[in-house]
């Protein structure tokens, strides 16, 4: 079966880690992830500038590795990301901001990508909360 997974919480929220463990279980169960979509505060889960203390779980780094390792389609909502200062190289240049925190493997794009994923997938599963 095909899943669309949407993440609405930052990397430090328990639900971001929960979404990641769920996504891993989806693949381990022989299913497919049509797309990961990061919206609202979920855009922070994609930030490359998070520095986790050494003895704490680095969920943002785990997301990055998960997306890269499985070559997943991982979209960060551009409007939500700009509002929260999560920028790729293009946007940082466009708005003349000093830092880029969204390098590969993420793609900045619009909410249409969430709708497209929901149409493609058998299940849309959203994660947020504590």
């Amino acid at each position, binding site marked *: *079966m095909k*899943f669309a997974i949407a993440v*609405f919480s930052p990397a430090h929220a*328990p*639900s971001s880690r*929960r979404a990641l*463990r*769920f996504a*891993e*279980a*989806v693949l*381990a*169960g022989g*299913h497919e992830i049509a797309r990961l979509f990061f919206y*609202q505060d979920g855009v922070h889960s994609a930030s490359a500038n998070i520095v986790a203390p050494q003895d704490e779980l680095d969920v943002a780094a785990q997301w990055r590795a998960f997306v890269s390792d499985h070559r997943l389609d991982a979209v960060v909502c551009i409007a939500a990301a700009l509002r929260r200062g999560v920028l790729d190289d293009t946007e940082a240049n466009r708005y003349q901001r000093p830092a880029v925190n969204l390098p590969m493997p993420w793609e900045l794009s619009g909410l249409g990508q969430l709708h497209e994923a929901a149409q493609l997938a*058998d*299940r*849309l*599963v*959203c*994660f*947020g*909360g*504590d």
Partner: protein
Amino acid sequence: MTTLHVIAHSPFGDERLASCLRLLGPQDALLLCGDATYALQAGTEPFAALQAANLGERLFALAEDLQARALDSQLAKVVDYPAFVELTLHHDKVNSWL
């Protein structure tokens, strides 16, 4: 069509659980994860609300969250992540109360 409702907020001082129980259909299921599992603390108002809802086999809780919080599960069926994935497929859709 059946819905798996998912809640991840503490029921103390939050309206999600109450609203969800109000709207839950007769075939719908509820999965508690994260701080929502505190609803399984016996002797509390949320616990009483869950008991009154009488969900039977349609109430679930994520195993790791019960374990982390030293909660036991008299009411809910305990699921791990693979079972969570299966649950989403056993229902027509998933409604997460973000």
